[in-house]
């Protein structure tokens, strides 16, 4: 029982944190309405992956992977530097994504006056529904006008002054 406990909970502590952060971040992305909160959720989600990478390179009691002179350096145990380097790249990607996302939010706020996704979507759907209704109406009108079309539609010149609707 104790072995089970030490191996699963403290031994894999980092990974439990990774999973918890990942789920918190993912939930925030999905559940929150506010675009900034969504972006923060995305950040938490990405951060959990950074911890995943850093954790896999860690050795218990290891030092930072920096070259040391003297006898201490010869016997030192280093953490694996490669995952850290990889994650540095991923952090840069994360920062650029956040910057771009925030820039988009600023422009969304300028265009819609809101950063709640529901409000923005409602505005979009309102425009879309109005456009859709208009387009449907025009399609119907075009269909209704069709039987008369051949008489006036022989060439481009005539049908222009043809009262279609």
């Amino acid at each position, binding site marked *: 029982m104790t072995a089970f406990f030490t191996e699963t909970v403290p031994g894999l502590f980092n990974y439990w944190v990774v999973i918890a952060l990942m789920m918190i971040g993912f939930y925030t992305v999905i559940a929150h309405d506010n*675009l900034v909160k969504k972006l923060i959720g995305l950040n938490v989600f990405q951060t959990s992956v950074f911890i995943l990478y850093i954790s896999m390179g860690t050795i218990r009691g290891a030092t930072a992977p920096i070259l040391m002179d003297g006898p201490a350096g010869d016997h030192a145990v280093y953490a694996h530097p490669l995952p850290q380097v990889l994650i540095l*790249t991923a952090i840069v990607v994360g920062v650029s994504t956040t910057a771009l996302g925030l820039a*988009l939010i600023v422009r*969304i706020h300028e265009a819609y006056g809101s950063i709640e996704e529901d409000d923005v979507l409602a505005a979009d759907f309102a425009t879309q529904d109005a456009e859709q209704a208009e387009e449907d109406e025009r399609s119907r009108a*075009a269909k209704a006008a069709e039987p008369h079309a051949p008489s006036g539609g022989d060439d481009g010149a005539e049908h222009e002054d043809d009262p279609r609707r």
Partner: protein
Amino acid sequence: MIAHFVSQFPILVVVVPLLTMPLVVLAHRAFAAWALYLACTWAVFAMACALFARVATHGPIDYAVGGWAPPFGIELVIDSFNAVVLLLVAGMAAINSIYARASLAREIEPERLYLVYALMLACLAGLIGITVTGDAFNLFVFLEISSLSSYALIAMGPKRRALLSSFQYLIMGTVGGTFLLIGVGLAYMMTGTLNMADLATRLPAVFDTRTCQAALAFIVVGLSLKAALFPAHIWLPNAYTYAPSSVTAFIAATSTKVAVYALIRFVFTVFGASYAFEQLPLNQVLLGLSAIAMIAASLAAIFQTDVKRLLAWSSVAQMGYIVTGFALASTAGLSASLVHIVNHGLIKGALFMAVGAMAWRTRTTSINDLAGLGRTMPFTSAAFVVGGLSLIGVPATAGFISKWALLSAILAAGHYLIAALVLIASLLAVIYVGKVVEALYFRPRDAEASNHDAGEAPLAMQIATWALIALNVAIGLHASPELTATGRAAHALIGGGA
């Protein structure tokens, strides 16, 4: 000297657009920026052609970046499979560069034009990077380069709805990218390597572990998000509809195709088809999802009133065909998949360009506003009709070749239900393409509309559109070079994977 220069082509196809990008920003003037963009894309295309020819005659090219020997350094690998994708991406960029100037000038204010060209180059560099790299982590970085630039490009669209579309794509794309990162990390955890070829030799030892299974699952889900495979396609219709026409034509023809390429690369080269399809039931999952994609997205396309959105939904359906092909896990299926990656790129590129040309004239893309354009814009409308026929899969077009290859692969594998669904989806394509063609040719032009916008689109836009249409017809009439290339690629992949 020349030979030394040629041997650097694998890295130059990535570096040239990446380094031209700051030059474009410095050039600042719209014309200078476009001229640089044009020169760069054609240079990349020329190098891609040279690489393709070299791979066809001399076999795969391995290139160690910076002289660091793989598996420690980053390796670029160009084999018969990604040479085809490379040629598609570079070719689409080159043709699009002719088209872009007139099209973008109408949709974006002149002082921001240079930024669009710079972003298009970043996107191109990212897409080519994904295609040529032989390193799993490097692929993630290039994926993010291309994704970040495409979010910004989509947000440049003229309507305000482009902004939210771009933001939604950013959220889904980043989740997809991060999933890929997790998957690559888990694979690295088990093997200690990031080089794809090295991963392929080391992974079989740890196939039974849950970490390895989770790695494959994360990579497949992450790349499916990028490729807009059925349940993860939500971002695509809006993104394609509201992006500037020229951007849509480029992204629709390349970005999802490259994501599918990466998916095929991971499944077949890194994990191996026998692991993904025999030990894990990936093929049933993918076949099911792509069958739903074909039917549901085609049905959705029928009810659209905007041509760009209609074509975007059709892209989701076509992605179903591509995924069906490689989910069969046979050489014929994989070859059909690759044929359709290329052909669908050509078809959708041509169709979005034709629609962009119409939008250049009418400034809208709703089907009703395009009514009667068959008379005022005969060449562009004719291009749309030929492209539409290719999308449906009428003989003597590229679409027919890929449908034929796909259907024979499906029938050879004995999936008669899937074959029936492919045919039904093709019939649905007749309806949605027919809807646009009906409006173009059999409806009169709006009286008030025809007064101020008569006449054709600019010549450059027509030339680019017709170049792609001509390629469609050429492949339809003489498919053997393409089929040889894809067949060889499929053989190499299945042989390497098993």
